[in-house]
């Protein structure tokens, strides 16, 4: 490994570790895909397709590696505008599965929303690094949030709620990294928690008290703090009213359908039940490779992309899951290490943003398979089958490699 590092990238020890982890994850994914393909060696099997995507992505990885960080930094606005416009292209093509998310390239589909995520991060990173001195001021947060909102609003119209939410995932960690003060960050997440907490009286009361204490501890004008506090409480109180009384059942359903168009006709609870049964029946060491009765009998739908972790859990047991979770942990930690050691501010912020994207995918996908989150088509990095997202993962990898060269 060290030879590999020294030869290509000088003496950056973290990159070697990163590649080792990524190769392990990919191998793990391929082994699992092989197990669930009916005819793994035919060109249309998910295993072979994945193999082809990986080779193609590797090629893209090496090409992108040639691009200088400074080029990316200086052209970040251009990159953003380009990605933004690319997201409009599907609206002029015929819809794929009733959505406008995909561009059909013949041999596979690409999802421009995925690339908009990266472009958003780069633009936000540039803004934050250029305004480093003002970072202690509260207003610094507005521009990054506006950029994220713009991107998010666009993909929401495709419609793609999953990507729209994920676009916000990097915003908080990047601001934290940039040094935005804690109270400002708290103000940003408070309304979201308020709305969620509003579903239950008890939780809402507890949250009200916690919020009160936090507001009291921080500095600033009393009137301002009290106003913000009550604005929060009222948002929480009004939301259920708005949801239950203002919208009728039909409108609510329309809204849910709009947000979640890939709702499977079989019903999402069916997915969760099958996934949990598959996971639970795997036990400590699993049923063995190719032996998962739930997955092999195809009880579990979309198992090669959204539910690949359930397949791993059934065939390799908790042991397999522990290994893969360890790999995920090391992946994210290594990326944070690289960000921390990075010599310039912009690179460091971009890497933190990209890391947040990968982590949110890992978290949402895993949480979905064990029923902690609603079914949402977000694949797991480097493991799930799927060309567009695999390509994105490799683009992220190549950006990280690039940005750690300094």
């Amino acid at each position, binding site marked *: 490994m060290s030879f590999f590092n020294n030869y290509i990238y000088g003496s950056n020890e973290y990159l070697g570790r990163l590649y080792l982890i990524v190769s392990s994850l990919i191998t793990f994914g391929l082994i699992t895909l092989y197990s669930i393909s*009916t*005819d793994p060696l035919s060109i*249309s099997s998910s295993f072979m397709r994945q193999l082809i995507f990986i080779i193609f992505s590797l090629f893209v990885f090496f090409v992108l590696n040639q691009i200088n960080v*400074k080029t990316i*930094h200086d052209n970040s606005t251009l990159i953003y505008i380009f990605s933004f416009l690319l997201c409009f292209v599907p609206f002029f093509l015929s819809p*794929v*599965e*009733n959505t406008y998310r995909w561009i059909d390239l013949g041999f596979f589909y690409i999802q421009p929303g995925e690339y908009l995520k990266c472009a958003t991060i780069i633009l936000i990173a540039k803004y934050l*690094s*250029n305004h*480093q001195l003002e970072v202690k001021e509260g207003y610094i947060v507005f521009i990054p949030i506006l950029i994220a909102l713009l991107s998010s609003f666009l993909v929401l119209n495709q419609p793609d709620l999953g990507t729209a939410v994920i676009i916000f995932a990097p915003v908080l*960690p990047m601001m*934290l*990294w940039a040094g935005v003060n804690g109270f400002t960050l708290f103000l940003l997440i408070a309304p979201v928690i308020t709305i969620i907490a509003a579903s239950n009286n008890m939780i809402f009361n507890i949250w009200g008290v916690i919020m009160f204490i936090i507001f009291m501890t921080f500095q600033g004008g009393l009137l301002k703090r009290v106003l913000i506090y009550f604005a929060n409480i009222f948002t929480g109180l009004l939301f259920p009213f708005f949801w239950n009384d203002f919208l009728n059942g039909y409108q609510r359903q329309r809204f849910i359908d709009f947000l979640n168009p890939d709702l499977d*006709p*079989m*019903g999402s609870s069916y997915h969760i*039940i*099958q996934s*949990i*049964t*598959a*996971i*639970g*029946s*795997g*036990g*400590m060491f699993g049923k063995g490779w190719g032996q998962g*009765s*739930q997955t*092999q*009998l*195809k*009880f579990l739908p979309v198992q090669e992309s959204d539910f690949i972790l359930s397949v791993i*859990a059934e065939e390799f*047991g*908790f042991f397999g*899951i*522990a290994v893969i*979770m360890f790999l*995920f*942990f090391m992946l*994210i*930690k290594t990326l*944070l290490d690289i*960000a*921390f050691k*990075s*010599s*310039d*501010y*912009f*690179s*460091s912020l971009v890497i*933190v943003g990209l890391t947040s994207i990968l*982590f949110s995918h890992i*978290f949402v996908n895993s949480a979905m398979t*064990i029923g*902690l989150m609603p079914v949402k088509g977000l694949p797991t990095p480097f493991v799930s089958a799927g060309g567009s997202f695999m390509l994105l993962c490799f683009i992220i990898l190549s950006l990280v490699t690039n940005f750690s060269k*300094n």
Partner: protein
Amino acid sequence: MLKIENKADIFHYRTLLFVLVFSILTLLSRYFYLQVIEYERYSSKSQVNSVRAQATYAPRGLILDRNGVVLVENYPTYILTVTPYELDNKEKQFQIISDITDISIDELSRRYKKYNQGRFLPTVIAKNLSFAEISQIEERRLELSGFQYKRFDERLYNDVLKDAHFLGYLRELDRESIPFLDKSQLYRAGELIGWQGLEKQYETELRYSKGIEYIEVDTYGREINTINDNNIPAYPGKNLTLSIDSKLQQFSKNLLIDQKGVILVSNVDTGDILSMVSNPSYNLDIYRGETTDSDWSNLLSDEDKPIINRNIAGLYPPGSSFKIITAFNLIEDGLLDPEDSLMCTGSYIPPGSSNTFNCWKGDGHGLVDLNKAIAQSCNVYFYETVQLIKLADWTKTAKIFGFQNKTDIDLPNELIGQIPDKEFFINTYGRWGWSERGVLLNLTLGQGDILVTPLQSLRYINHIASKGKTAKLKLNANKKVEYYDDIILSEQTWDRVIKGLYDVVNSEGGSGWRAKQPEVKLYGKTSTAENPHGEPHAWFNGFFDFEGQTYSLVVLVENGGGGGAVASPIAGEIVKFFTSEQVEMVNK
């Protein structure tokens, strides 16, 4: 190197690391809870039984004619499937099946291999089983573990129209095609899908919507119980009502009985196609059940090409009907006075050439004006007058009338034919291998490199019949009437041409006099199109008013001879059909 130095704080690094560790541990503990603590529960749940979702089906929509006559319906058959891992003695069990169904063991083994989808999934090995065969299988149920039969609807065609190409057919879906289909329709290998004709065009409407049924199965996949909660019922496909009148279709088919060719009848006002015959044809039933490979290759290699729908995919030189294209240019652009006459002596020698071009009438038409030239289809008149027109203008007019363009009919695989322009001639004959004046002599007779489909010809005559504002041709009776781009020509131009077409049928010496009917005003143009395959093709394109509606028709008899002698009488018969007693069927 960028200027601004990284000032990442170790506190921020630790905060993010803490969030990471916390989230991963949350996930892991949940996995641990499910897989280790609750293992017994889920293990037994997965072993004893699982819920399997199974698709349920409903019938595909029917295809009806405009009067509600069923043209295509569904016919129940049974298919036999086998699930590989449930077999206990493959050879012996195949022997039993072979005895019952008369399918050889070799054939069964071949299908078993070919259609295999995996050890746990049922594979289709026999189709079209009769109820008697199913009963025998049911009797020997115990010996036949792993074998299952289920109902499988196939298409049944009405005897009258079982050779109508436009209906199209269904095909069994293979795994390779699935990624290219609409995913929301949930296609699976082995299901039937509209593959040609209207079945393909209206696949989304005709196809049933699949239902879901939840079944409790044991660890071997055997059914234990059906669960009634959350089942989604299957809904039948929508019926498709055609503009076709099956009586007229049958009547016109009989007019062509031994000849190759096409008969098209449409309602000009709505674009509805009432009859679309393409002869020879073949029995659509061959797509059902078992057709031997030799039957197939005979059909495909047949020189008369019965497999092709000549209406949309047959390309023919149009012949004299294209003289009208020249006429449109002459009148609209004021290139001559239509009342002026010139002398037809039976032949024409272009200036500066030594070649003689003959009129079809050897001793000539004498003095000819535009009206007479159309009515009697005088070649010499058009030879001389086409010299006044530029090639580019001429081809532009042809294209305005829809040639070398799709008619947008609701059928897949329509061909567009060819209107040769300057570029075409340069590519084909070289820059100096042709002259504009020379090729126009050919084009004005609708000969040479022009190719059109009969349907384009129908659109052409509809444009004339409606004076340029024309409904798009269609087969679906319930499809909204749409219009082609308006063709804007002066009223005088339309009137002159239409008068000419009237005289083709109704004046003395008109080339289409054999089509004339006493009670109906029929307009038309005969064509006799020379071609390299033998006798000329006989055409008649025409329209007539009947009970307040305008109808149009195209008759083409391949290698039939003269348009006047062969195609006109057939056109006359069709008009007669309208005036005879069956009329109320048509006009409904």
